C-alpha cells in the first residue's frame, strides 16, 4: 500500500506554483466579483449623489489614517476604516494578480506554455509581476 500513488485529494497534493496560481486566479476573481464590484457601484452611486456622498465613500474606503480617533466608540469605526483601506489596496492587488494569471490563461488557451519548466516559470512570474504592478500603480497614485 505504502508505495502506491495517492488519490488526488486537496489534502495530499504536494503544492506547486501552478496550483497556487490556479486557486489564486479563482480567489482574486471571485473576491473582486463579490467585493470589488460592490465598491465600484458604491463609488459610482456616490459620485452621482453629490459631494457629501462622495466624501462619505472616500472617508470609508480611503480614510486619512492620521485623523482617526482611538477612544470610546470611535475605536470600532476606526478599525473598520483601517480594514477598508487594506481592502482597497487588496482589490488593486487582486486586479493585477487576476490580470496576470488571466493573461497566462490566454497563452495556455492557444495551446502554448505547457512545457514543465515554462509552465512553472510563468506560474511563479505571474503573481510576482502582479505585486510589482500593484506597487508601481500606488507609487504613481501617491507620489504624483
Amino acid at each position: 500500500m505504502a508505495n502506491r500513488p495517492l488519490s488526488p485529494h486537496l489534502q495530499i497534493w504536494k503544492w506547486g506554483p501552478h496550483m497556487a496560481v490556479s486557486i489564486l486566479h479563482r480567489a482574486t476573481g471571485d473576491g473582486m466579483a463579490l467585493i470589488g464590484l460592490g465598491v465600484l457601484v458604491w463609488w459610482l452611486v456616490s459620485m452621482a449623489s453629490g459631494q457629501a456622498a462622495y466624501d462619505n465613500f472616500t472617508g470609508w474606503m480611503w480614510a486619512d489614517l492620521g485623523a482617526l480617533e482611538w477612544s470610546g466608540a470611535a475605536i470600532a469605526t476606526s478599525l473598520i476604516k483601517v480594514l477598508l483601506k487594506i481592502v482597497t489596496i487588496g482589490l488593486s492587488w487582486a486586479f493585477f494578480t487576476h490580470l496576470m494569471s488571466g493573461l497566462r490563461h490566454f497563452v495556455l488557451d492557444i495551446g502554448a506554455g505547457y512545457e514543465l519548466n515554462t509552465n512553472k516559470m510563468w506560474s511563479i512570474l505571474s503573481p510576482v509581476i502582479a505585486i510589482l504592478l500593484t506597487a508601481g500603480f500606488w507609487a504613481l497614485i501617491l507620489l504624483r
Partner: protein
Amino acid sequence: MGNGTSIGKVRGLGSSHHGAHHWLLQRFTAVGNVVLMGWLVASFVLLPDLSYATVVDWIASPVSATAMVLLVISTFWHARMGLQVLIEDYVQDSGTKFGLFALLNIAAFGGGALAIFSVASLALGGAA
C-alpha cells in the same frame, strides 16, 4: 432533452457546438475587461487627483461615460459567469444552487443597472 430522437439526446449537451459557449463568453468578456480596466487604471494614474470635482468632470465626458458603461457591462458579465462556476463547483444541493443562481442574477443585473444609471445621470447633467 428530447423524447429519444438522436438530435434530442445531444442538443444542449456540448456536442452540438454549444458546449464552449460559456467558456468562450468568459474569454470575450475577459478581453473587454483587459481593455476597459486598462483604461480605468490609466485614468486613475493620469487624473491630477481623485477629488469629487475632478472625477465628476472626468466621468461626465462622452468617452469616459461610454467606457465606464462598457466596463460595468463587461466586468459584471464576466463576474456573473465566474461566480456561476464557483456555485456549480462547490454547491451540490440543487435547491440551494437554484436559489444562489437567482440571487446571483438579481445582484449582477441590479448592481449593473445601478452603476450604469449613475454614470448616465452624471453624463446627462443630472448630478445632485
